[in-house]
């Protein structure tokens, strides 16, 4: 009897190890490369760990250049741009998304349920088809190559999703809470801000992370709408970076690590909310 259990344990831990390996091996390998020197990287047979790990590539990316048009400064500026755009998109989506979600969850108005479905279908509009029209719109508004343009378009893409998930959250909050507040004399907006939102923080954090990640990682629109360091975001800058350094693999990987750290860190920090949000949103939604 005991032997079967031990075998089961061994198999179990083996599978766990394989799973973890498959999941993070690519990621680990990129990190290892980023701290290796070119000599180690290009040695054959493959070196599994650098003989002299160093952070030279990181230091280069984070400090080289003259703050002007050189590729390193541009890279750093694009990190800043990505951060600003993603942060504002998150803020705007959370605010307007909660508003909209509340409307769908709690209020009655004509065509309510049909509009919800319409929102869902907006997610199916092919990105490629609207790229040129979107470019023309922003050109006419004189907003080409601005962070504002990216913020607007990212928000538009993300709002329906935030509304959909927060709607699920709001629906699960008992109605009595607001009713009590309304009866006590608060306005409708007051009920929303002071009663509903504080209780929904898990949902807000979850959708917030989604919104941030979605904006940080977005590539297509950023490629079309930005061109200078004024608004260029990280995914676009990364492709330039890669095109420029075709042999300095350590440098390329360091760039990649810097680009993926914020989304990964954010997800890990807020993982509890994320996991709850993912499940509540899709299973109950």
């Amino acid at each position, binding site marked *: 009897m005991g032997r079967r259990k031990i075998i089961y344990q061994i198999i179990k831990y083996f599978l766990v190890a394989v799973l973890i390996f498959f999941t993070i091996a690519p990621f680990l390998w990129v990190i290892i490369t980023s701290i290796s020197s070119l000599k180690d990287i290009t040695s054959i047979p493959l070196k599994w760990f650098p003989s002299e790990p160093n952070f030279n590539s990181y230091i280069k990316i984070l400090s080289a250049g003259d703050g*002007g*048009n*050189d*590729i390193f400064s*541009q890279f750093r500026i694009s990190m800043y741009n990505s*951060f*600003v*755009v993603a*942060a*504002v998109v*998150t*803020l705007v989506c959370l605010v307007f998304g909660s508003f909209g979600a509340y409307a769908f969850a709690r209020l009655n108005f004509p065509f309510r349920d049909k509009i919800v479905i319409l929102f869902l279908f907006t997610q199916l509009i092919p990105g490629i088809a609207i790229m*040129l029209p979107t*470019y*023309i719109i922003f*050109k006419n508004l*004189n*907003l*080409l*190559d*601005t*962070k*504002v343009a990216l*913020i607007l378009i990212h928000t538009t893409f993300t709002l329906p999703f935030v509304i959909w998930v927060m709607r699920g959250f709001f629906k699960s909050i008992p109605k009595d809470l607001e009713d009590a507040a309304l009866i006590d004399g608060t306005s409708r907006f007051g009920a929303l801000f002071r009663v509903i939102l504080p209780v929904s923080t898990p949902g807000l954090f979850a959708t917030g992370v989604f919104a941030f990640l979605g904006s940080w990682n977005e590539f297509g629109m950023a*490629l*079309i709408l930005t*061109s*200078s360091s*004024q*608004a260029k975001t990280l995914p676009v800058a990364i*492709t*330039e970076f*890669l*095109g*420029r350094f*075709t*042999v300095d693999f350590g440098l390329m990987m360091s760039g990649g690590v810097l680009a993926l750290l914020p989304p990964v860190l954010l997800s890990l920090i807020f993982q509890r909310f994320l996991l709850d949000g993912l499940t509540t949103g899709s299973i109950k939604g």
Partner: protein
Amino acid sequence: MKSRIYSMIALILSLSLFSACSNSGTTKDTSGKNGDFEGVVLRTIGGPDETGYWAKVNKEFEEQTGIKIERDTVPYGQDTQKLINSFLAGGSSYDIFVTDVIDVPQYVAAGWVEPIDQWITEEMKEDLLPFAKSAVIYEDKWYGLPYASEWKSFVYNKEMLQKGGFSEPPKTWEEFIEVSQSLQEKGIVKYASSWSWLQGEALICDYTAIAASMGSTLFDADANPTFNDESGVKALQLMVDMIHKYKIIDPASLTFSEGPVGDAMAAGDIAFELQWGIPTVELNNEEQSKVVGQIEASLMPYEVKPATISGPMAFSISSGSKNKEASWKYIEYVAGPEGSKRATLENGMFPGWKSIYEDPEVKEKVPALQDIIDQGENAVNRPAVPWYNEWSSMMQVELQNALTQKKTPQQALEDATQKTLKIISEN
């Protein structure tokens, strides 16, 4: 504690909001009068400024004329897409841009390029090199000033060849195969050469050159496709065999653009390369190259006649630009005879002006100039038709079909011929 975190987050978010709104993209739409360009801003777009050359030149131009240049940098090949967007939205996003010889017919036909006949002098017209014409002149009008009027040069690593017992570079393809195999067997290199045969324009460039070396011209005088004739097929078969039969070419070449090929040469990984412009300049750059002083140029191996591919480019003005006078000033500065000389000396660019080749300073400072000029005599052009890009894209796939051994060279070229005829009929 919780409220402290909330207020921190709120603070960060509001700061971001302010930061985002404080920038706005504007194309300053000032029309500069003749001679008075103060405050004009011109926008242009180009690839990575690796040597810092453009930053320097643009700054000096601003100091001299008061015109500010804003140069968007994008990865190689992505400027086309941005340019086309700009054109479709009126052409004022970029005042100045670089056209490749293959784009000129299409852009001119669409009315996106401003003719510069009104500004160009007789002197300049005389000075233009014959083969640079195809990039700046279309249907008898001038549309730009020559920039990087280059062709591909064949260079080899002299030391490696000597180590292998060869005092002369190979002249024919047979010799090339022999030398390559020998170098590999002696362990001097893993692969004797890499080529830029990815699914991209670079593949068409190389194929055109190799086919020309076999005597094929791809199209006849009436623009009918002829590449599925004996010499065209032979050229493709040679490329396939060099990878799969003789194994003298790095198979990863099917994913390489010109960049990785140049890097491999500079790293001393390969013994031969076919590269744009004057590769000896960058291969003798102490900071980037491991093979300083080891490189020499020769003619690309051939069977019928020596050949190489030309790829002249030009600085052009957008017809939708709101600052055409100022734009002319700029392209004259960077691509006129004086600016070109500087580009040659400092950036390894190929001038399109005869006078520069005869300039004593240039002759002195550019190594192997004469060899490279000799190659230029044999440079062939790709077809100058408005539907070129469509044809090229189709052709790249068929060539790769042969190179990946999905089809035989004969089959691939025949299919390509059929498709070419279809494209012609639709235009």
